[in-house]
């Protein structure tokens, strides 16, 4: 068993491997050096795992690349894997999210992109088709860009149905029950402190995660506020009580334990640093009713934040957690976030991490 961690940064991709059940890690040489890797995925549904990377070629534009030999060689589609149709009058600005669907939909991969758009591939990520139901949604012209851009940054296909959940900064949460044709905003209860009153949509939801035991139960780290829904977003309630701050970017739900999720609080919108300069992970075991703080192995005296996709879990037992900071440090936990080991230091800003267990 090998544990593989893909680390996408502002200037390249690194892979870390562990062959001793996540106790120690070996860091690779850089891949795609000098390219921004804002989205990465390890698709383990294939005979050979496929690395998918949403890259920005600096001057030369964004695209999706893939590797079927763990980074040794990379391919891209001649015409571009993600390419707006001419009548859309838009150009791809950044790939924010690459999300393989379930094993039953083996070649389906979703991509969330900037400008606000959702894409679906049926060939493993080599080419994508624009999801017109979202692109043509009457709300789209009024979705605002978040500070990072006008992005669909979260894509959560339900393996058991045709439901797809997306989150956007700053459009909020939308749900499709028919595979992407129709979309309904699901933001009631999520605050929008930057607006005079709570809107139907337009919230700056930073990340959404689905509970391991109930597809109707989701957690959201908002731009101010941490929330839970038990009815697939029809109503959200605050679960920020017990946290030192309700601002942050990522939220991760356990893939195996219902009610378990983690956040990494930052002080506030206007002070996006760890409280007191102490990088800490907070875990709930009861779906947000209470939180516990963990920090063994994480630094004090640090003022770097963790971005929305730079925090993830693996499928191990116990669950492994991985986080990367904007000052290029990567930490791994093999015990559900209670203690961490350092995987990497001094990398460029970490934009995304994704983990997989390989046989």
């Amino acid at each position, binding site marked *: 068993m090998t544990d593989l961690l893909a680390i996408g940064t502002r200037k390249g991709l690194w892979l870390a491997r562990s062959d001793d059940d996540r106790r120690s890690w070996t860091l690779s040489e850089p891949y795609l050096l000098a390219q921004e890797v804002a989205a990465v995925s390890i698709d383990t549904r294939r005979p050979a795992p496929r690395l998918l990377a949403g890259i920005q070629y600096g*001057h030369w534009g964004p695209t999706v690349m893939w590797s079927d030999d763990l980074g040794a060689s990379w391919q891209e589609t001649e015409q571009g894997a993600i390419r*707006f149709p*001419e009548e859309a009058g838009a150009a791809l600005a950044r790939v924010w999210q690459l999300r393989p669907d379930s094993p039953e939909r083996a070649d389906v991969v979703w991509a969330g992109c900037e400008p606000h758009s959702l894409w679906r591939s049926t060939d493993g990520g080599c080419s994508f088709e624009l999801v017109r139901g979202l692109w043509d949604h009457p709300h789209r012209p009024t979705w605002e860009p978040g500070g990072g851009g006008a992005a669909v940054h979260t894509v959560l296909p339900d393996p058991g149905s045709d439901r797809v959940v997306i989150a956007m900064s700053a459009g909020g949460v939308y749900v499709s029950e028919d595979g992407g044709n129709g979309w309904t905003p699901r933001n009631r209860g999520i605050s929008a402190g930057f607006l005079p009153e709570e809107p139907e949509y337009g919230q700056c939801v930073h990340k959404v995660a689905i509970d391991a035991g109930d597809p109707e139960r989701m957690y959201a780290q908002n731009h101010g506020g941490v929330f839970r829904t038990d009815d697939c977003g029809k109503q959200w309630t605050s679960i920020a009580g017990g946290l030192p701050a309700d601002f942050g970017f990522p939220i991760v739900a356990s893939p195996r334990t219902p009610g378990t999720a983690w956040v990494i609080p930052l002080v506030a919108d206007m002070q996006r640093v760890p409280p007191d300069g102490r990088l800490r992970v907070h875990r709930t075991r009861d779906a947000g009713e209470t939180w516990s703080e963990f920090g063994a192995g994480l630094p004090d005296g640090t003022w770097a934040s963790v971005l929305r996709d730079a925090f993830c879990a693996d499928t191990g037992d116990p669950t492994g957690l991985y986080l990367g900071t904007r000052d290029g440090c990567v930490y791994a936990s093999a015990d559900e976030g209670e203690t961490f080991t350092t995987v990497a230091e001094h990398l460029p800003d970490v934009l995304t991490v994704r983990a997989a267990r390989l046989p």
Partner: protein
Amino acid sequence: MSVQVVLPGVLADLAGGHRKLEVPLGGGTLADLLDALAADHPMLARRIRDETGQLRRFVNVYVDGDDVRFERGLDTTLRDGTQVQVLPSIAGG
């Protein structure tokens, strides 16, 4: 009639390893040239223009030494023997 395209080294791999390309073109505009380039070298063309056909923000194109952004952009007229140079702008961090 042909136009010479001069590429930065970083793009040469996408043009068969060549930094200079002779593109047969019977007159026309810079847009016509880039369309012709896209037919033979689609990945190279994508580095220069996005899918709306616009020059990428940090890519500069010079026609006989003149920045086309200060000329007629993609409508800049090309003549037989014109040299078109593609250069990355100063950008990044």
